[in-house]
């Protein structure tokens, strides 16, 4: 029935001269064709299509059959598959490339979420064929095709572990491989044209550049691109990354100018539209990662840049990566920072670098990773990279950096860590032959005043600030023991009266207040334990704990007692060190 219907339409159209088909002809042809395919009549349809008499009709309207055909090809319906494939191939041969392009892209766009991979892999080759037929005017069509395909590919989950990548359950890796095969002839074309002195702002070249930048962002930014140490075989995504970099070099997009663009360009304002598309920051960050951490593409990167300059440029990208929350980005940011730092000699970075905004914002981000990131190993890595960055600064830079961190980090653990670093630097400076002006004498004093202080006076939360307070006390004790009063190289002895006022006195006062408070609390919990009935109420205000915004279940009275007791122990500990310090200072009659 449907077949005869189609034949009717075709017969009618055979009479039409010069392809003057009416819009309704297209529609009728498409509907009838679809029905024939759907009802398994593809063998007969093939006959109709191949019929010499119908040549003009097929050339003009054939593309409208792409939808139903692609459906069959993807679903691999056994009976109709060979015929549909033959029709598909025939249509691709005879129809106008422009219409085919639109038709094919429509199919890509409409792909069912579950069959994105199959659709992309099936259609990339036909798309390439069609685009190549467009000749010299294809640039924007290539761009359109790439954008359409990439936006579909971006919907696929990115494998992160080696096993996932191996399995390639969602087919992302296969898509990437297919994409590379797809762009290959276009890359060659641009390469040849550039070789013959073609223009750098060639449209096709721009489209390929955009493609590379998009791939760097998605999927590569999210992928784990590390080399597999156990096997010489490259992971598919890593291979994809190296191929993308090869494309960049084929189209003569020099890596240095890509990466250092932002430092060398005068224009401060972020580029508008075109620039943004061409050089998205995030893509460049991924590129920097590939080059400096994974050494992909390093063979075409000049080996004459100074490590400081490279660091300076990479700071932009590190900043961007570390300001994010995703593991893949944080990991890349930490790696990039580490690899940029290890190329430098210790104590070599000059203080002037701290004038650059990124040299302050990167540590801030690093502190956030160290203190807030839920992934343990990233927190640990962040801390070690933080220390590495401190080691690379020269004395003056370290000094300025410590001051800055003490003023801005507002996290007791980090402040404690910085204070420990200050102690190490003073220790180093006090060793014979190492004297330096920054960690002794007059310069040191302002830093000491910062380190030896209670941020909120006696009201400081001693438990919260414990890490910092203990390091401050350790530092003070160290100074008093290590630096003889007669020598006073650090200036601590003449500063002591001031520190007494600004640090020790308020600390003692705070200790007394806190102790009284906790003891009272302890007492009340004990009492309330006796009066079981009141326990919940008494437990309420002291012991609700929230972690990551989630309220933890209320503590049992036993736990409450434990916590309160351990708080009191902590106060004891502080007190012991404080007492020890007072002992040392009291021995000296003139203080």
């Amino acid at each position, binding site marked *: 029935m449907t077949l005869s219907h189609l034949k009717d339409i075709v017969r009618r159209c055979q009479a039409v001269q010069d392809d003057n088909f009416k819009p309704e002809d297209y529609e009728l042809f498409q509907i009838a064709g679809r029905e024939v395919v759907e009802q398994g009549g593809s063998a007969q349809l093939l006959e109709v299509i191949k019929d010499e008499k119908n040549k003009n009709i097929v050339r003009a309207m054939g593309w409208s059959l792409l939808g139903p055909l692609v459906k069959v090809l993807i679903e691999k319906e056994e009976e109709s598959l060979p015929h549909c494939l033959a029709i598909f191939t025939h249509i691709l041969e005879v129809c106008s490339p422009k219409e085919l392009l639109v038709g094919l892209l429509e199919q890509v766009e409409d792909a069912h979420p579950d069959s994105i991979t199959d659709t992309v892999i099936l259609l990339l080759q036909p798309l390439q064929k069609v685009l190549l037929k467009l000749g010299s005017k294809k640039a924007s069509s290539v761009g359109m095709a790439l954008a359409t395909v990439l936006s579909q590919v971006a919907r696929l989950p990115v494998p992160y572990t080696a096993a996932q990548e191996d399995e390639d359950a969602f087919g992302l890796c296969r898509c990437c491989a297919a994409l590379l095969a797809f762009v290959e002839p276009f890359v060659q074309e641009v390469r040849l044209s550039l070789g013959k002195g073609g223009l750098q702002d060639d449209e096709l070249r721009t489209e390929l550049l955009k493609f590379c930048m998009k791939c760097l962002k998605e999927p590569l930014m999210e992928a784990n691109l590390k080399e597999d140490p156990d096997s010489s075989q490259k992971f598919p995504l890593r291979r994809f990354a190296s191929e993308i970099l090869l494309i960049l070099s084929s189209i*003569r997009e*020099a890596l240095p100018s890509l990466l250092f663009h932002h430092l*060398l360009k*005068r*224009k401060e304002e972020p580029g508008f539209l075109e620039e943004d598309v061409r050089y998205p920051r995030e893509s460049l960050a991924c590129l920097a990662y590939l080059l400096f951490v994974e*050494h992909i593409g*390093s063979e*075409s990167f*000049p*080996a*004459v*840049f*100074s*490590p*400081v*300059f490279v660091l300076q440029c990479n700071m932009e990208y590190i900043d961007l990566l570390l300001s994010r929350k995703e593991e893949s980005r944080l990991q890349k940011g930490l790696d990039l920072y580490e690899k940029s730092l*290890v*190329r*430098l*000699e210790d104590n070599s970075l000059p203080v*002037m*670098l701290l*004038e*650059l905004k990124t040299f*302050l914002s990167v540590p801030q981000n690093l502190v956030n990773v160290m203190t807030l990131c839920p992934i343990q190993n990233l927190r640990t890595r962040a801390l070690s990279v933080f220390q590495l960055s401190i080691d690379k600064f020269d004395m003056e830079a370290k000094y300025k950096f410590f001051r*800055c961190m003490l*003023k*801005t980090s507002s996290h007791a653990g980090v402040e404690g860590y910085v204070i420990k670093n200050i102690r190490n630097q003073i220790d180093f400076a006090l060793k014979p032959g190492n004297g330096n002006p920054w960690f002794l004498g007059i310069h040191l004093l302002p830093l000491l005043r910062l380190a030896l202080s209670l941020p*909120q006076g006696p009201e400081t939360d001693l438990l919260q600030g414990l890490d910092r307070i203990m390091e401050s006390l350790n530092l003070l004790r160290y100074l008093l023991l290590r630096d003889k009063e007669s020598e006073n190289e650090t200036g601590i002895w003449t500063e002591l009266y001031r520190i007494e006022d600004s640090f020790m006195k308020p600390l003692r006062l705070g200790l007394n207040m806190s102790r009284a408070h906790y003891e009272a609390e302890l007492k009340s919990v004990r009492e309330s334990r006796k009066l079981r009935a009141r326990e919940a109420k008494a437990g309420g205000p002291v012991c609700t704990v929230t972690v990551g915004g989630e309220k933890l279940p209320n503590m049992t009275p036993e736990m409450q007692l434990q916590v309160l007791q351990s708080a009191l122990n902590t106060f004891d500990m502080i007190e012991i060190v404080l007492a020890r310090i007072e002992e040392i200072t009291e021995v000296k009659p003139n203080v």
Partner: protein
Amino acid sequence: MLYILLWNIIIRLSSQSVLIPLNNFLCRLNELLKHFEMYGFGTELPMTGDKVFVHYVGTLLDGTKFDSSRDRGEKFSFDLGKGQVIKAWDLGVATMKVGEVCHLICKPEYAYGSAGSPPKIPPHAILVFEVELFEFRGEDITEDEDGGIIRRIITKGEGYTKPNEGATVEVTLEGTFEGCVFDQKDVKFEIGDCESFNLPVGVEKAIMAMEQGEESLFTIAPKYGYGSAGNAKLSVPPSATLQYKIKLTAFEKAKESWEMNTDEKLEQSSIVKEKGTQYFKEGKFKQASVQYKKIVSWLEHESGLQEEDEKRARVLRLAAHLNLAMCYLKLQEQNQALENCNKALELDANNEKAVFRRAEALFAMKEFERARDDFQKVTQLYPNNKAARAQVAVCQRHIKEQHEKDKRLYANMFQKFVERDAKKEAEKGKEEEKGSSKMDIEEDGAEVQIEA
């Protein structure tokens, strides 16, 4: 193997100097190394900051080639003396002439040191570069890279900070035209205010690219100089390309927020507020806004203040936002004005000026209904404000007009384009109107002094 030989000789000759400078030595060692090198022509050497173009081949001492621009088929370019490349290059290329080919043999300290540069260069590697210098040229410092201001650095400055808008700079400068000095002076001024000192805008742009202590020669095209008018006072003819030798002796770098304590921030805020007001009175709204912005950046996130300081900080911030709003209104940057009014209202919910200025901003953005609401709010809260009452009426009129216009617009699609033109005309008219209303606001400008 010649490298090794050469290396030994050089070590002996220069055990005290760390960089092995190369073409000087090579010249001296001419006999031995003749086939390596080619003399350049001309006498001129590249200067610090110049963009230089070279080809190079880098090898390790064992002869392994690790990098070559010739293989890449593209000349390598970089800014000389800026620390972009390894030290050996910054020093070595500075001694080359155009056309010269030489070998730079770099000790690790002057290359990649103990860390090396993975994956290509191992730790502690001595590197040998064959370098050919093709071209060098002064650095173009204009934003559009239109060649309008070219710099040649005589003495490099220090640091990475450059004077920004609003920075106070001290410079020694000498302007010449065709070899004749037309201007020579030591001046101290604030960036953005060059006209008061009879300096062309190019000089200001030049200074903003300079580092502390830097001395440079600038070639400034007429576009950035005195233009087609020239400068009669200095007897600079029309369309003259100028040469300036400028030394940036000092500039006041605004302190980073974290470098200041609360007292300092409060004290500095009062000072820059004065400055801002001064600029405002002189009609220099841009410069004034730079000053007020400093207050916001210093005090906005300052927390944990004593009660009294807190009060002072609030007053300063409120004034800063109100004055910024005024500046932006004058500069016709309505969005910024709006934002500052909102910030001010966060601090003082019913502030008369804040509401009034927000209304003005909205009015200028053609948000007549919202503008009317704000003007009405002013009249309700402050019945004495006659200006607001008048503005309510103006808004009403505009709303009505707009309404009718919309009606007509949708009524007839073909009319649309004609209407649009008409609207444009109307806008022009409105702008003129705005010009006249500016006069009214001038009285308001006096209010900035009250703020001070």
